């Protein structure tokens, strides 16, 4: 048996107006990406990317986005990502940018990367806390999120770890 090899792109959607992230859905992201590929790579690119291109997961709170496409031409989608400048959702045009964080062969490697990436982000952001209390608060929040306490989705960190493992 030969299986179709895929590539998973781990991306982050950044909004100029962060609360509007909540308005996003899979379909609007998919359409925007397909249009961008079609503009950057023409009819040929659009046709080739149509094969097994899918939005696997979108977190409307953190903007984390998983895309799946064929291994042979993931570069087409990859190179078209910077050309996405806005998403259309519920009749609104939302200015945004899509950054690619990681390209992996399985969802699992992407998830591992995302955990490491977020850990690094926290280390980077912690020194910016203005008071001791803030530090303690963040630490408590982080400590409180483990797989056992999935219900309490209150912290960014938590959601990503939880949902990704649920998605597997």
């Amino acid at each position: 048996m030969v299986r179709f090899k895929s590539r998973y792109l781990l991306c982050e959607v950044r909004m100029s107006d962060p609360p509007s992230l909540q308005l996003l859905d899979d379909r609007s992201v998919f359409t925007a990406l397909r249009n961008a590929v079609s503009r950057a790579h023409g009819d040929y690119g659009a046709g080739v990317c149509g094969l097994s291109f899918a939005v696997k997961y979108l977190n409307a709170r953190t903007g984390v986005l998983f895309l799946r496409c064929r291994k042979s031409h993931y570069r087409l989608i990859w190179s078209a990502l910077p050309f996405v400048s806005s998403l259309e959702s519920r009749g609104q045009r939302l200015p945004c940018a899509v950054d690619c964080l990681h390209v992996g062969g399985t969802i699992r490697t992407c998830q591992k990367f995302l955990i490491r990436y977020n850990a690094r982000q926290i280390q980077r952001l912690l020194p910016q806390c203005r008071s001791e209390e803030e530090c303690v608060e963040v630490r408590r929040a982080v400590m409180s999120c483990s797989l056992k306490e999935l219900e309490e989705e209150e912290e960014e960190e938590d959601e990503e770890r939880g949902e990704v493992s649920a998605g597997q």
Partner: protein
Amino acid sequence: LTMLTDLEKCPRHLLVCEKSNFLNEKSRHDVHVAGHYFNYKVSVLIPECGTLPSGLKSIVNSIAKYYLVKNFPIYKILEEKFLEKQVKAGSLCALSYKTRIDQDNTFALLPTGKLVLSLDKDTYEDLGLEGQPSQYNHKVPVRYVITVDLADKSLAPGTNKYKRVMWALKEKVQLRSDFLMAKHKPDEEECPLASCFTDYQYKEYKPSVSTQTLSDVPCPVIHSKHLKGQAEESCDSQEFVEWLGAVTAGIECNNEASTFLSTYCCPDPRIIMGKACLCTVTGFLLPENIYQLLEEIRHYFDEPKFAPWSTLTVHGFSDSPVSWSTAEHGFHKGGENMYSFVIFRNDDYWLYMATGAHDACPP
């Protein structure tokens, strides 16, 4: 960064560049010319020369006539009379006309007496003669090549093998085609080629000659000893051959840096040549004719001339079943099989030989 690797491949091609001297004992220029049997076009470029030199002119005008014979059956070539009088007497070239090597049956008679039939699968199977699958088949063979050596003793008229081949070509499948034929023989009066196909519709042709004078053409500087060129002093052989192509195709080499259309310009270092003579002969040309031309160009430099070099370019038939001697030839995308001499004043020469994707490396 390549995004569409599968779209960025292009067919294989080979270009061989040689440098040597005509007086060098081991020089194989004569072998290369004599081994390229089916020539369609030859062009001579002589710089710093307003009109074609008289020596060359007389050779160009004396190039052998050729015949186009309509609907000629191949078994006729094997008939005893034709075989003895024409084929074995030597240097008869014949090539099927307007047959495409990638779709039709193509036939060629080499001056050595070999008959090459390049056939599609159905004809090959009907014919029932032994052959080889073409080298450039895909997974399933769809083309076969049969080589019959008419000069071989085992194929003398009367032998079983002869009868078998004759039967296959005459009774089994009567292969016919229009043929281009030419023969190099000074004593042609004895048995003229034309007498052999009076039963068929045929026409005699003379090669067509066109001469043009180019003026004020920028021209790259080359040095016979440096095939790869020297920085700031002379151009390399690849730059030169591109320029030569541009000049023969009548392409403008003086593009401004800002032009939208084309960025091609004559390579540096360059000089301006005041005048140049470009003479083109088209027809069914025999290797002997080409060799005469080559010798004449060498003699052109016997007296001191302004021109540092001159060139002789020979195009082969892209649908011929062989390129050099018996090497199989195919069309694929371009079907090029051609060579070009750059002849320098001091008997040095450069020789380019090019073949396309369905072809062996030039000799």
